């Protein structure tokens, strides 16, 4: 399954694009993939993100998500460094 991942700030700059299509699958064929799976898939798609990957945060449908969160193709998924607004 391919899931589109929106990128922001340094992640966007390093990847050189606003979003990446990340190939991902669950542990078994029937399992839905998790954010943990996506994190691995993102590094495969864009190895240059390895330097900041441990600090990258994830969001699904406008909510922060941890590595165990299940995702499907209909979800809005984003990945970004810790925020620094204000």
């Amino acid at each position: 399954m391919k899931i589109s991942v929106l990128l922001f700030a340094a992640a966007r700059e390093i990847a050189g694009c606003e979003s990446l299509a990340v190939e991902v699958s669950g542990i078994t064929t029937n399992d839905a993939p998790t954010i943990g799976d996506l994190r691995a898939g993102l590094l495969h798609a864009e190895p240059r993100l390895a330097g900041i990957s441990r600090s990258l945060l994830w969001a699904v449908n406008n909510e922060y998500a941890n590595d165990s969160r299940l995702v499907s193709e209909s979800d809005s998924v984003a990945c970004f460094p810790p925020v620094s607004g204000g």
Partner: protein
Amino acid sequence: MIELTEQPIDFNAITESVQSNAAGAVVLFLGTVREFTKGVQTDWLEYQAYPEMATASMSKLEQECRDTFTVTEIVISHRIGALQLGDISVAIAVSAPHRTQAFDAGRWLIDTLKERVPIWKKEHFSDGREEWQHPVISQQQQQQQQQQQ
């Protein structure tokens, strides 16, 4: 009311919009672009947002603030794009029957906005360097640097 805008923030209109006969206190907080940070001179700042999540997150902040503090009106406005020295990046206005609640709510809103709302700041320094600001990365880097010493 929450707002994410590329236009200059009109703090006068924002403050007037929270004034109310039910309130005895108004607290307005403005974040402004400072020239020097730890001795390094800033030329300008760039703010980028994840707009859909940022507005959703700011709306949740407003609701959580109303659930936690006794407030009358709340406005949160964040600017994105290129900001010059002295420009207002964020305005938070709170009115409340009593001043303690207005101060506590205003402070909670800016503290929590800075922790949660997906907006990022890129420093463009006067010496030509540019750098995305990421608080946690910096802390990790500092810890690594301390461990190396």
